[in-house]
Structure formats: C-alpha cells, structure tokens
C-alpha cells in the first residue's frame, strides 16, 4: 500500500462534511479544502459537529476553519465559500487528490460526479437520510461511477426526503466510512465501485460492488458527457 499525503476537498460542510473534516484533520493529509456557502443554523447543531451554539448565524466555513485550527493548527485549510457550480466545478476539484461529496441535493451530487470524472479525480459520494446512509467510492479512472448507479438527476420522481431529517449518529458513521474509502482510494486500494450502506436502525453495514454500465452516459463505452453543461444540473433540492 502506498502512502500519499493527499489534498482532500469536502463538497458540503454539513452532517457528513463536519465529521469527515474531524476525521481527516487527524489523518496524515497534506491539506483540506472546504466548499460550502451556507451559514450555521440552530437546526444543524445535532449533526454538524464542528459547530457550536455560538456559531449560529456565521458562515460555516468561518466556524469550521476556527474549529479545525484548534484541533490541528499545522493543517492547511482552504476555504471555498461557494456552492459547487457548473462554472467552477472542474477547476475546483482539479486542485485536489480526492473529493468527498456530502451535499444535500442531487444536482450537486451529479455535478461533482461529472466534474471529477472529467478532471480524473477520485471521489467518494455520501448521503444520509433518517436512519440510512450510503457511501460510494469512485476511483481515478472514474468507472464505475455515480451515474452507473443512479443514471441522472431526479426530476420529481425520486423518493422524497425533503422532510425526512437526518439522524446525527448515522451521518457520523457514514462520514467515517466515506473517509475510510477516500483514504483507501488515495493509497491505491481497489475500493472503486464499493457501495457501503449503513442501516442505523439495526446497526447493519452492507457492502456491495457497483458494476460499470456499458451504456453509462459518463463512463460507458461511448460516454455522452464530455463537458459540464449547466442545464444538466437543474433539480429539486432535497434538504438533509
């Protein structure tokens, strides 16, 4: 196993990004990028464990940088106070060795997937809703990918999680799995295509291997996605 001191980008500093940042800050990484433009809200505090009550109302990145500095003063932390957007995504992910995507909406998930594939950067996607969470590792070759699993941005017929909420401990467990997968990817471990699901109600982990789809629009035999087209990422937001 090779040892790489990676530069790691977190897309979304929320229920997943916060515990992931804490785990990464204690790891032997070269730097940590944070991409988010939200402010801390009272309702975040049960699962966004970088933040304290006194942080409510201030930008998440401002609070996160201060919290991480207390834990690991020597770790370079790079703030990107923006959402991941079609016009910044590829350039942003290209600055890093691996991306951890923990956003709360499908449009950003697909955008991150496409940007990383186009930039040749490995990514670990993660989501958590109520008692269940998933993490999917996509290797540097970009296949199999998030689109092999879920194909395209939902347009209203996906399961509605807008009012579901997220159990804090579930987000923490899934974020830990996400960090494990990311560190394995940059160490050269063959975890690309591994899909980890966690059922927090029964405390059961399941691990499956996603198979590349030949007709995948991103990583199939004749991929149609060759660039980032903003219209492709219009979607309904789904709060976490």
């Amino acid at each position, binding site marked *: 196993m090779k040892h790489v001191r990676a530069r790691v980008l977190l897309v*979304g500093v*929320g*229920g*997943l*990004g916060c515990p992931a940042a804490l785990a990464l800050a204690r790891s032997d990484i070269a730097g940590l990028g944070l991409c988010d433009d939200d402010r801390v809200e009272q309702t975040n505090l049960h699962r966004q464990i970088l933040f304290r009550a006194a942080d409510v109302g201030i930008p998440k990145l401002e609070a996160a940088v201060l919290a991480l500095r207390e834990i690991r003063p020597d770790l370079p932390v790079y703030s990107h106070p923006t959402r991941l957007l079609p016009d910044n995504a590829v350039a942003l992910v290209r600055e890093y060795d691996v991306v951890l995507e*923990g*956003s*709360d*909406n*499908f449009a950003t*998930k697909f955008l991150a997937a496409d940007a990383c594939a186009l930039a040749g950067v490995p990514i670990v996607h*993660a*989501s*958590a*809703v*109520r*008692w*269940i*969470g*998933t993490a999917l590792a996509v290797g540097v070759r970009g296949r199999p990918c998030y689109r092999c*699993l*879920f*194909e*395209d941005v*939902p347009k209203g*017929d*996906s*399961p*509605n*999680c807008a009012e*579901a909420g*997220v159990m804090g401990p579930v*987000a923490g467990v899934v974020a830990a799995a996400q960090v494990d997968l990311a560190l394995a990817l940059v160490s050269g471990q063959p975890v690309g295509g591994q*899909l980890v*699901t966690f*059922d927090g*109600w*029964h405390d059961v982990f*399941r691990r*499956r*291997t*996603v*198979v590349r*789809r030949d007709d995948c629009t991103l990583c199939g035999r004749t991929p149609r996605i060759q660039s980032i087209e903003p219209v492709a990422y219009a979607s309904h937001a*789904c*709060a*976490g």
Partner: protein
Amino acid sequence: METIVRIPTPLRTLTGGADEVTATGGTVSEVIEDLEKRHPGIRERLLDDKGVRRFVNIYVGEEDVRFLDGLKTALKPGDQISIVPAIAGG
C-alpha cells in the same frame, strides 16, 4: 416461494412502517406484483414503463438485478431482495 424484501425508509409509509416484508414469487417481477397486492402503491415507486426506475436499485443478495436478468431474475430459496433508492441528505 416466500422471499424477504428489505424496505428502505422512504418506502416504509407503504408497508405500515415495516422495514422488512415478505412476498411470494419465483422472479423479481413476480415478487413486486405480490408486493403491490399486499402494499398498494409500491410498484409505482419501484418501476416505470421502462422497468426499474433509474433512481432505485433492486438487489438480490449482493447483486443489482440490472446486472443479472433484470426483473426476470429467478429467485432461489433464501434469497433476499433489498431496495436501495437514491438519497440526498447529509
């Protein structure tokens, strides 16, 4: 043949909150038809006119049915079906 089907959180409103139900059938398609009889509305959440909805993955054991024989995938005694929907939250 009865098969255990693991129901994800977003679909449990259709199963009275149950996270695991049983249904009868020799193939995935037959099990879904039986699920629909027992839990009306669930088929529409899993399938559209092209087959398995693109935001849902149906597994038999550890294998996605898309990479087996699709909805015609034959079930063996002891097989479990699990449903993994796309979720976004964190």
